[in-house]
């Protein structure tokens, strides 16, 4: 018997094409790779557009005015390198860090926020109470590593509560239709939790409060839905209570295991260390289908009022692995911008980063040509390039470090920015 020939389906109409989905067993890896490529190409398109705009603006500026950036000599530093790392970076688990680095295109193009008029009034205030950081009260590297490793299993379980690493398909279950934010409905199973440590949502939150700050923020809860029937529509959630029992949503995801974070370690270090808080970053190499990635797990720890170290936040990101790169060389984490626990509440990071971008544009440079990190600073160095006196002089400033990407022939730039977003200084 002759084989069936389906070549007639080539160049088929749209309604047929949609049903001809080509699957491959390594589809997840292919998707990951293609998404990274798409992001890189998208950023290239943005850069290309920005460059054209810059050129137009320059022409316009030359026509209309001789001095645009006061006190700063305008010069051009070419940025040939197309950054691969940042472009290929992808978030594996969206973290809870409000780093302020997530710009939208619209925000990027909208220009800088003007500093608050009160800035001038505060320039004469000089606070001399810079908090001291004697080395002996800072936690030691080994102690911090111990805290990371001790709390890792709780992170693993906590972040994997909706995976089969925690729940069992044998547990009693009930299906609800979940309405996602895009309005679509998804039939979703919820499994009745069989865990001797807790049987209600409050008990679960209380249990994980021993290891996490504000665990409920990462445990989206629908409340008691006992007045609903199976198949009813609920808002998107991961936990609910039904007829007096706690239910967990069943997903196809998997938990992060200690094994996968314990092999091919490229870097394992603490950052932003304070007496009562620090960030730990572990970077491991993962190879999938001939593509190597550097995956970074960052966890922030903070000491509670009763002196117990707990997890403040966690985040997993990845980027393309670079052969020969020393992943322990940088004084900053691989992909995390800065620490969430160090930022003052009244600092507007969007304005800060928009100002940095505008400042760089004065040098015909692009923010996205740099790998940006930040930290809080309380003291200014003896000598630095002072851009303006018109800034908030309260010893709570942001130090923004702009590192060029490997292969880029430019220098690292370090800028000092106040809480209103005024770039007032730069390191020589």
């Amino acid at each position, binding site marked *: *018997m*002759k*084989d*069936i*020939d*389906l*070549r*007639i*389906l*080539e*160049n*088929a*109409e*749209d309604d*047929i*094409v*949609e*049903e*001809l*989905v*080509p*699957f*491959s*067993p390594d589809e997840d890896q*292919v*998707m990951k*790779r*293609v*998404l990274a*490529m*798409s*992001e*890189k*190409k*998208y950023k*290239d*398109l*943005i850069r290309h557009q920005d460059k054209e705009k810059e050129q137009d603006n320059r022409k316009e500026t030359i026509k209309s005015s001789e001095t645009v950036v006061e006190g700063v000599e305008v010069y051009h530093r070419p940025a040939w390198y197309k950054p691969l790392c940042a472009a290929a970076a*992808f*978030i594996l688990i*969206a973290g809870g860090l409000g780093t302020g680095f*997530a*710009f*939208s*295109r*619209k*925000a990027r193009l909208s220009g800088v926020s003007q500093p608050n008029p009160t800035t001038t009034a505060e320039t004469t205030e000089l606070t001399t109470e810079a908090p001291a950081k004697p080395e002996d009260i800072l936690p030691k590297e080994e102690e911090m590593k111990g805290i990371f490793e001790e709390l890792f299993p709780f992170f693993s379980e906590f972040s994997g509560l909706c995976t089969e690493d925690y729940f069992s398909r044998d547990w009693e279950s009930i299906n609800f239709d979940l309405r996602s*934010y*895009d*309005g679509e409905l998804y039939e979703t199973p919820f499994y009745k939790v069989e865990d001797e440590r807790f049987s209600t949502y409050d008990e679960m939150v209380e249990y994980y409060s021993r290891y996490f700050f504000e665990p409920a923020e990462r445990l989206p809860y629908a409340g008691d839905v006992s007045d609903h029937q199976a198949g009813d529509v609920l808002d998107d959630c991961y936990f609910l209570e039904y007829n007096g029992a706690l239910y967990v949503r069943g997903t196809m995801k998997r938990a992060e295991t200690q094994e996968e974070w314990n092999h091919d370690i490229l870097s394992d270090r603490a950052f932003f260390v304070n007496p009562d808080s620090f960030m730990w970053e572990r970077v491991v190499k993962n190879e999938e289908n001939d593509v190597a990635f550097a995956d970074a797990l960052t966890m922030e720890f903070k000491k509670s009022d009763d002196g117990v170290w707990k997890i403040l936040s966690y985040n997993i990101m990845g980027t393309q692995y670079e052969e020969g790169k020393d992943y322990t060389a940088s004084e900053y984490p691989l992909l995390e911008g800065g620490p969430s626990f160090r930022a003052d509440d009244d600092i507007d990071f969007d304005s800060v980063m928009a100002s940095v971008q505008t400042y760089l544009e004065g040098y015909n440079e692009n923010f996205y040509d740099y790998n940006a990190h930040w930290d809080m600073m309380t003291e200014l160095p003896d000598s630095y390039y002072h851009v303006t006196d018109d800034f908030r002089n309260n010893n709570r400033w942001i130090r923004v470090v702009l590192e060029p990407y490997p292969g880029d022939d430019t220098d690292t730039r370090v800028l000092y920015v106040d809480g209103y977003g005024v770039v007032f200084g730069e390191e020589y």
Partner: protein
Amino acid sequence: MTGGEYLALLERSPKLAHEKLFGEYYNYVRTIAFNRLRSTGTSEDVEECISDIFAQIFFTFGEKYSNGDMKGFVGTVAKRMSIDYYRKLIRKAGKTFSMDEDGVPEISAELDLVKESENSELRHILMDSIRELGEPDSTILIQKYYYNKRSHQIGTLLSMNPSTVRMRCKRAAEKLRRVLENRGIKEGMI
């Protein structure tokens, strides 16, 4: 996800917005690119093309499309760019021909239209018949006879034993022939 919802998410987190859009339309875009390039390009070409398409969508999707059909926008970009990529590959492979050269087939517009109309009818009957087989048989047939996948690859995809795939494939093919015959489509017509 509507265009407006995408733009709202884009404001909060471009990365998440891109990931969401990518996850939602990856299969759709891949299918369009794959079907356009399958006879010309390699799997790397298809991946390149898909990434070009998404980069273009990320770059161009804006307010003016937010009220329209997002799938329509994605499909249009995917089709146009797949065709461009196909032409690029053809040029690269030296498969172009000049209309001045001898041997260019004369085109009979009327004949082609009739033939294309017949083919379109046949394609819809064929797809209806494949759909009628139900899952997993319809997927097995498409993967086997359209994408030339091996039984063990299909088995991995469907979590089935390769021998089960072979058996189901054989039976499904026989059933498809019967269904097509009942609809007046004999072997050789397709």
